[in-house]
């Protein structure tokens, strides 16, 4: 079933690049404002990029409350893994708009896929997160909002990623 919202690739790219800028700039509250109230943000376990969070172990499966808690934590001084904060740079490419897999999105949603390479610098180390984003973007009062966001990693493990996902991917 095709999804309903008419979104050009350029519009999708603009949205993803603005979003990446907010995340790289640690403007996490502004980023959170891009999410719907029923947002889902998820990172499957490495080795199981197509898993379901209802039946398999993930790394992250946040609803709005959990995501708010994650951001509150990251902005506090007590997120020790990110204090001092890491610096990141997100390279986002291969953006495609359209039905993704069995996408069953609503009339006001568009499915967007993209490739990412997030590089994290801290303690003079460089950590890599490489994978694929799958989004459902929804039009809310004429504004694009994130209803569902999955960051699926390509690596076999987090051994090249500093052993953790302490940032928003």
């Amino acid at each position, binding site marked *: 079933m095709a999804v309903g919202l008419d979104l050009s690739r350029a519009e999708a790219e603009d949205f993803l690049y603005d979003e990446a800028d907010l995340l790289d700039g640690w403007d996490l509250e502004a980023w959170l404002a891009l999410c719907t109230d029923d947002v889902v943000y998820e990172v499957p376990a490495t080795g199981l990029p197509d898993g379901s969070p209802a039946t398999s172990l993930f790394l992250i499966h946040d609803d709005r409350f959990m995501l708010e808690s994650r951001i509150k934590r990251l902005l506090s001084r*007590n997120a020790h893994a990110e204090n001092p904060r890491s610096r990141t740079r997100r390279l986002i490419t291969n953006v495609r708009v359209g039905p993704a897999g069995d996408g069953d999105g609503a009339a006001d949603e568009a499915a967007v896929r993209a490739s990412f390479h997030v590089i994290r610098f801290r303690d003079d180390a460089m950590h890599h997160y490489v994978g694929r984003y799958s989004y459902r973007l929804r039009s809310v009062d004429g504004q694009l909002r994130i209803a569902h966001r999955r960051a699926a990693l390509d690596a076999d493990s987090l051994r090249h990623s500093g052993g953790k996902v302490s940032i928003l991917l």
Partner: protein
Amino acid sequence: MEQPFIVDDPSTDTFRINRRAMVDPEVLAAERANIFDRTWLYLGHESEVAQPGDYVSRTVGGRALVLCRDHDGTVRVWLNTCTHRGATVCRETKGHGRFLTCFYHAWSFDLAGNLTTLPDAEAYGPGFDKAALALKAPPRVDTYRGFVFVSYNPAVIPLVDHLAGARDYLDLVCEQSDTTMAILPGTQEYSIEANWKLLVENSIDGYHAMSTHATYMDYLITAMRKAAEALGEKLAPPSLDGHAHDLGNGHAVIEYTAPWARPTARWAGPLDPALREPLAARRAELAERYGEERARRICETSRNLFIFPNLIVNDIMAVTVRAFEPVTPGLMHVRAWELAPVGEPAALHEVRLDNFLTFLGPGGLATPDDVEALECCQRGFTSWRELPWSDISRGMAQERPGITDELQMRVFWRRWNQMIGGDPAAAGGGEGETPVRLHAVGGGR
């Protein structure tokens, strides 16, 4: 003048660890020879190979292994190496099939280990003994309640004796299910740039909960307050309360009450209030089956269980099984899985999965800070020559040490010290082998 690795003096309530144990490649070599090559090591869980033909491969104690279920349904463990010229016969981390085939010369083995086919077999002549070229198993393989262990020491004591007092705590974890517990799909596969023994300490350390995990506690209290307000109830002040226990053979546990929800079976925020009733009903069923006191422990108490030397089973807001493998003195590989009752109702099962992720794993609100803490310790150990001692004496003067004391770590370290010294009796035998002798650190180095 030589210094020991451990100072253990009850007369002054002193317990100190020499930090050389965390940084010296010689110590790691001795650990491999005297601990990892001599005692039981956790490999995996039978449920990971639930169907005949299932296999997984992983490295344990430095050896590449295959865990599989053969076509008769028997769980088997093989050294992942072709008996011909040595290549691994399994190159996937997980799979399903009838044969393990070495691609190098196409020798093919069934999952029961038999060498079934090889190209041009007739060239080997009449003395060729195919049966002798079957896949080889580690010297000892045994299971307890689905947990599969291996030992590279043929003379190791029986697994059931090795587990000692830890058996009862594994039983408590497994009694959450009326049938059996299973590892769910998905592995949290990560690494920590720190000595493996730091993860042993950290995984059973109640003292760090409030400081290291302040942001998790903040999340938890916020969630509980929201739930209490929605129900028009007053939030009970959250606390962690319980005791540490020595389970023998280096195993230890902390068992305690905690504010968080437990899918079997303790309701608390952020769980949906609609789940209160089903969780109470589940607890009543367990009380019927095991009696009130046992049901209280199964449902109400959390436990962080360490099984010497490489297994953690933390039955807290969900159950994680965590195994680790030293790579260098300053690097370990970690694998974590989720263990859950088979056949749990879907609504409860989903809650279990989400509750796990609030705290546990490298994307949770807590584990990344543990990784950071351990890596900070390892960095601090660079000055081990100038500041050689870490203190693990907390609670030594207590009659019944609590969970914020350090008895459980002393239990580990005493066993470590006994085995690292090359005491053959410590692994339960192994006659005829010469243990590696490790010289204690010279003073003033």
